[in-house]
Structures are given as C-alpha cells and as structure tokens.
C-alpha cells in the first residue's frame, strides 16, 4: 500500500496490473507490472480505471496493435477487467477510482477448446 510523490511533487499511487489469456503479449510478454500512477488526472479528478487504460496505451504498451486493447476510446469487447478479483461491472467499470495497492487484472476471454 504505497502513496508517494514523483519528482515534481505530484501525488502518486502504486498498483499492480496483470495481463492474462494472451494479452500479456501486447505488454512485452510480462504478466505482472507494478505501476506508479498520478493520483489525480490532469483535471484534478482521482485516477480511475479509464485513466489507467489510457495510461497503459500511452506508456506501457510497446505493441503497435492498439486496436487489440482499445476500440473507439474504450476497452475492446472480449476483455474482462477484474478489480481485486471482482468483475469491474460490480465496481463501477471505468469510473472506479483507483486506490493504492489495488490489483487490476485484464483477461482476454478465451474461446478455444
């Protein structure tokens, strides 16, 4: 549970982000990332999941195939988001405000059999 400040003195929060079901290949084949995020966005609102998705696209994803993660400004269909092991639909989806120590898991739904 970490809240810290970055070099400019802005408040940060540290969360764990995990990828599974094949999504890890968009993020340098790394399943687990520890991320320090600004605690508030540029408009001064608490950072939420929408902000995190944006941050992942801009600062973490190396793969150029962004459309496999976001489509039309939102997460693409077929990706589950689990906030501390609960479906994000139980937690407010993109509006959920991140707390230090949160675990956010992005899982591609699988169809193989």
């Amino acid at each position: 549970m970490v809240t810290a400040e970055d070099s400019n003195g802005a408040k940060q929060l540290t969360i764990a982000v995990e990828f599974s079901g094949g999504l890890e290949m968009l993020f340098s084949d790394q399943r687990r990332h520890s991320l320090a995020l600004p605690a508030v966005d540029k408009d001064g609102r608490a950072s939420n999941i929408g902000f995190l998705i944006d941050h992942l696209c801009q600062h973490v994803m190396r793969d150029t195939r962004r459309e496999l993660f976001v489509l039309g400004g939102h997460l693409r269909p077929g990706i589950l988001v689990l906030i501390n092991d609960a479906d994000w639909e139980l937690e407010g989806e993109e509006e959920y405000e991140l707390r230090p120590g949160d675990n956010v898991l992005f899982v591609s739904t699988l169809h193989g059999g």
Partner: protein
Amino acid sequence: SKPWPWPLQHHEYQRYGRQMIVPGFGLQAQLRLKNSRVLVVGAGGLGCPAAAYLAGAGVGVLGLVDADQVEVSNLHRQVAHSTGRVGMSKVLSAIAYLRELNPTITYKSHQEHLSAANAEAVVSQYDLVLDCTDHPTSRYLVSDACVLLGRPLVSASAFQTSGQLILLNSPPGRGPCYRCLFPRPPPPESVVGCGEGGVLGPVVGVMGVLQALQAIELIAKGGLEPAEGESEAREQRMLIFSAVADGPSFRSVRMRGRRKDCFACSDEAGLTLEHLETSVDYVQFCGVAKPVALL
C-alpha cells in the same frame, strides 16, 4: 425368483462404489447421475476428458455433438481419439473410446455442428450442457439455446497456457448467461482458436476435467431438480487458470449476475426459440476476421 430389491444393479454398485462412498455423495447422488442426460458440445480438447469422466461417473445418457473428423494434430490433447481413428467422425471416435470405458450407459451421437437450425432439437434431449466448443459463434448459440430451453450450462475454454471455467444459467433463469457477461462479441480479428494459436494438452485437459467435475457436483446435489421456491443464484464465480513458469496458478474471481437488459435471458428479452431458429445469424453477429488473425 424374487425381483432384485435394490435401486442399482449389482454391476453398478461394483462400478460406482468408489465414488458412492465419498462422504456427501452416496446412493442418492448416484441415482441422480443415472437419471441425468448430459450433452457435450464439441468432442475436442475439452470434450474428450469431460466426456471420459462423465461416462466413468455413470450419467444415464451422454450425448456428443461435433461435425469434425479426427486429425493427427488433435491427438496431443484430444485423448479420447486415436491414431487408428484419424479421419473418423470425432463423435464416433470418442464414443468408441467411451464405450470401452463404460459400456453400461447410453450414448447419443450428433455428427453435425450445433446450429441455429438444430439447436432446439438437440439440446432439448438433455438436462445439462457442457460447452466444449472453440469459437464465439458457437458459445453464443449454445448459451442462447440453454437459456431458451432452461438448461444449466458448464462453460470452459482454453488457449495456449490459459483456461477459464464458469457455470451459467444455473439455476435456469436465475444465473447469468453468456450474453450477460459478454453482451458484445470480441472483434473477429482478436479471435484465435487452438488450431491457429496452439494450446498445451494438459491445459485444455485440466479445464475439461473440471467441467466434468462441475457437472457431476451439480447433478449430485440435485441441481437439475426443480428448485423449491425462489432459490437464489449463488455467488457467480469464474475460475481462471494460467500455467505460468513456476507452476499452475488458479484464481477464482467474482462475476456479475444477470443483466437486466440481457438480449437473451432478461424479462424483456427479444429472443425466442422461433427467433433463434429463423433469424439469429451468429456468424454475422460475431463478424468475420480479415485474413490476418493476431491475438
């Protein structure tokens, strides 16, 4: 001679004795299994182990649906088939294996793809369905048919080193359906099956065995019998599996319940059996991928 006074035949006590003595199982669970009719949709990497353990446990009727033939490239994971049966219908190949394991139950073969046209005719013959298919189009179709016919659905999937398992529409009309969880299909470019993306045999094997376990437990505890009163759907959980470098990793996550405006299962749902048969185009709903499929 006197009539046999026991509810199971002698050979059944012999065959099923080792599970009947498990605490909480017993004769009643065995009789429920014997009276159950279970449909396995897909005789591939999930369907093979799932069907093996369902047949072993003694369900009354076990049905298999699949239109494909056995290929050599299936055999690292589809353990009910055999090299000598390459080219044979997967359904018949699997049933050949299952009959050797347990010749005392009834098998039904459906050598066809489950489709909007035949879904009602096939699914209505069974009490419980296992989705062991490998494409979103069939996953939406199987779920819709289960919703419309009031059948619980044990759904699993696997890809590369990952797997997922969830019990849907259970009890029927109470638990969420596949569309409640995934109202919009994934873009076709993001859909890759085990044939194109690969899968480790025991990864899909574990998920198939867990499907059989979930089905057996649901049947054993009376989950197919009409619920007394308004039984609540249990907390909805999905099991997520990853075969990571330092060993197997399982995670049970909490999922949402029914969606009030679900196209398939909500009170205002537009879906009917007639509609399903005549006007739902699952291929169009899920789209068709451009040539290069990537994830």
